[in-house]
């Protein structure tokens, strides 16, 4: 099938070692097989990154992909995905980002950026429609992301450009550095900013002035109107998302007894009212902000105008931040959480993993595995927000004890000692987000099997509660179904929130994901697309990601939940007394639902062949991976 719109049609390939810029036509096979966004990154990660490549070597490839709807007038069409081999986990890495940068890249004429090699000195890319320059970045190196964005705008002399950059954390190869776009939007997870830093690539600035053609304009407009009507009339997207963003989840998770508190020692934070959505709104919320073409405006913009942290201004926080820098560290000082968010954005750190490693260090301190002598004088008692803020800076610049945490959980455990491994709450090297699996067992099994380490966005269900009352076999089928559904926005280039789980009912989610998104794609690209075809692509993406990890040696053993969840009962809150006691049942059911072999964790041959992945199955065999 040849596409007639939706896509810009070009791939921009940059070799930083050779200082070479090439343009290629976007491959029809890639479009047909993987659609875009996370689909593109998954396949190109498999094809382009040698299995033995060190994530920080020039061999690693940084892939930035938009989807066919990115930058179109489809609502919430802001998204782009960054993929590479992760320096945090050593397996598949990717991060998804909103804002305005992705649409600008598309408007400049590119669906995909593929960045190889390593520049001998620091550089930034300036993409101005057809003109692409690799520019010296020596004046930018060492600057925060905000400073970098301002300076590049001055360099270029155009305030309307879009910039994605790394901060000191990415430059210093902190393993969980993100890429910051439009000042406050992060491609946060799995260390994609670290990969950018390893390539001496400080930023990618873009100006795009082209439109995006669509094949059937009237059909496309009709589909846009339908989805716009749904988004602006649904309680979830018209009121809850704009009014609360994601911050209402703080109260909710705490009420359910699952809000990560003091490094997952309990699921109930008794000071929650000091850091919840009400406290944020009443004290610090200045405005709400929307990404490209989105009516939901779920981003918070907060200002601290009094007290110790006066002058803090930050795009955020998400609920995730309130937990990571709040309850997870025993911290009930909301202004300090906003300051921590601001610092992480400026230094280019994933606020989630940063909070995760700090909480880990705090528990080691509590248990006597770390002392003030080890931490360079920092008192890491729970809730000591001055220490938290200082430690964020020490991590970003890899100073003193900050350097111990900057390399992630594995290296920190080596440094602190084996006993500390009990308190490193991670899966495949990445920390789980906020919601304790002991409090919602079926839903949060997802952390064990997500392709990029403990993650909540690979499987997200509409109405997570109902899964809890399902029979395990049925529940795992449902998890697998939701895994495919929430992949659809990722490959189309739109936002998961309004297109999937923020809906008044599962029926509305189905209508958006399985009827309207295919209709948008079909009318934009001028190719046949329906619910079955888009679900097939989603399944293919998940299998390709799994195969990428299997080829690196990942087996069923790496699909686990930390011992704390399996052995320790929650000591307080609604889920008091609960431990994770359904793991084996869930794992067996999920593997069966996915068509993976129970023993090896590798997709079965028939599963791969049904998905049209004969070539990947053969390649796995060449790498001595057993396909049954």
């Amino acid at each position, binding site marked *: 099938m040849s596409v007639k719109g939706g896509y810009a049609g070009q791939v921009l390939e940059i070799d930083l070692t050779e200082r070479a810029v090439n343009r290629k036509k976007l491959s029809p096979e890639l479009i047909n097989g993987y659609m875009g966004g996370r689909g593109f990154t998954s396949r190109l990660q498999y094809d382009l990154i040698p299995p033995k490549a060190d994530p920080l070597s020039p061999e690693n490839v940084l892939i930035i992909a938009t989807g066919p709807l990115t930058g179109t007038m489809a609502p919430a069409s802001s998204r782009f995905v960054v993929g590479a081999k992760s320096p945090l986990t050593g397996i598949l890495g990717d991060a998804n980002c909103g804002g305005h940068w992705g649409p600008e890249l598309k408007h400049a004429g590119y669906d995909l950026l593929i960045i190889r090699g390593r520049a001998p000195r620091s550089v930034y890319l300036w993409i101005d429609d057809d003109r692409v320059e690799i520019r010296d970045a020596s004046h930018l190196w060492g600057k925060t992301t905000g400073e970098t964005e301002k300076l590049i705008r001055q360099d270029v002399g155009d305030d309307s450009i879009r910039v994605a950059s790394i901060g000191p954390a990415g430059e210093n190869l902190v393993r969980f550095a993100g890429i910051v776009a439009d000042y406050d939007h992060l491609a946060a997870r799995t260390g994609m900013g670290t990969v950018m830093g390893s390539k001496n690539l400080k930023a990618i600035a873009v100006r795009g002035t082209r439109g995006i053609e669509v094949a059937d304009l009237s059909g496309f407009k009709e589909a846009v109107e339908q989805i716009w009507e749904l988004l602006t009339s649904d309680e979830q997207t018209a009121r809850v998302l704009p009014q609360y963003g994601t911050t209402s989840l703080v109260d909710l998770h705490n009420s359910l007894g699952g809000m990560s508190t003091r490094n997952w020692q309990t699921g109930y934070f008794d000071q929650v009212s000091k850091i919840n959505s009400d406290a944020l709104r009443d004290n610090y919320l200045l405005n709400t902000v929307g990404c490209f073409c989105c009516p939901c405006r779920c981003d918070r913009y907060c200002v601290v105008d009094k007290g110790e942290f006066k002058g803090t201004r930050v795009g955020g926080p998400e609920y995730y931040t309130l937990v990571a820098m709040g309850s997870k560290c025993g911290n009930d000082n909301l202004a300090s959480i906003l300051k921590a968010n601001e610092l992480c954005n400026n230094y280019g750190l994933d606020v989630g993993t940063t909070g995760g490693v700090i909480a880990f260090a705090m528990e080691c301190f509590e248990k006597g595995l770390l002392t003030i002598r080890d931490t360079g004088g920092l008192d890491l008692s729970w809730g000591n927000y001055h220490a938290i803020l200082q430690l964020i800076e020490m991590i970003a610049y890899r100073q003193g004890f900050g350097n111990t945490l900057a390399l992630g959980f594995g290296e920190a455990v080596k440094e602190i000692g084996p006993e500390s491994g009990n308190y490193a709450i991670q899966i495949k090297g990445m920390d789980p987000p906020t919601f304790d699996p002991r409090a919602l067992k079926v839903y949060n099994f997802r952390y064990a099997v997500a392709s990029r380490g403990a993650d909540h966005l690979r499987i997200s269900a509409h109405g997570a509660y109902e899964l809890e*009352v399902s029979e395990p076999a049925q529940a795992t089928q449902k998890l697998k179904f939701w895994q495919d559904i929430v992949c659809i926005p990722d490959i189309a280039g739109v936002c998961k929130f309004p297109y999937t789980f923020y809906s008044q009912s599962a029926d509305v989610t189905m209508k958006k994901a399985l009827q309207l998104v295919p209709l948008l794609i079909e009318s934009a690209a001028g190719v046949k697309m329906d619910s079955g075809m888009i679900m097939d692509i989603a399944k293919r993406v998940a299998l390709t990601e799994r195969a990428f990890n299997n080829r690196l040696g990942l087996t069923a053993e790496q699909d686990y939940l930390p011992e704390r969840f399996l052995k320790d009962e929650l000591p307080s809150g609604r889920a008091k007394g609960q431990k994770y006691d359904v793991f084996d049942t869930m794992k067996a059911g999920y593997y069966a639902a996915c068509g993976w072999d129970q023993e090896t964790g590798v997709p079965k041959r028939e599963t791969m062949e049904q998905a049209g992945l004969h070539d990947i199955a053969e390649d796995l065999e060449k790498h001595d991976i057993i396909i049954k």
Partner: protein
Amino acid sequence: MGKKFMVKFYSYLREKYSSHSGGEEVIIIDNDGDYTIEDLKKQYDFIPGEIGCVILNKQMAEDDAIIQDGNLVEIFPFFGGG
């Protein structure tokens, strides 16, 4: 005799449906007939998409569950994702 029970709203449902900061409301029903979760939902006239789950005396409850005198009904908003 009738029945008297407590309804507790969580998260963003609190400010919309409760006059108390803790989100707790006492409901008194004057007649002795069965009063179900569905009846309660009708009484509050919830908007589609607001309610994620209802917990009756610590057990997840379906719409046909009958509320008894002295029960605690906890109402959580819908959520997905996080």
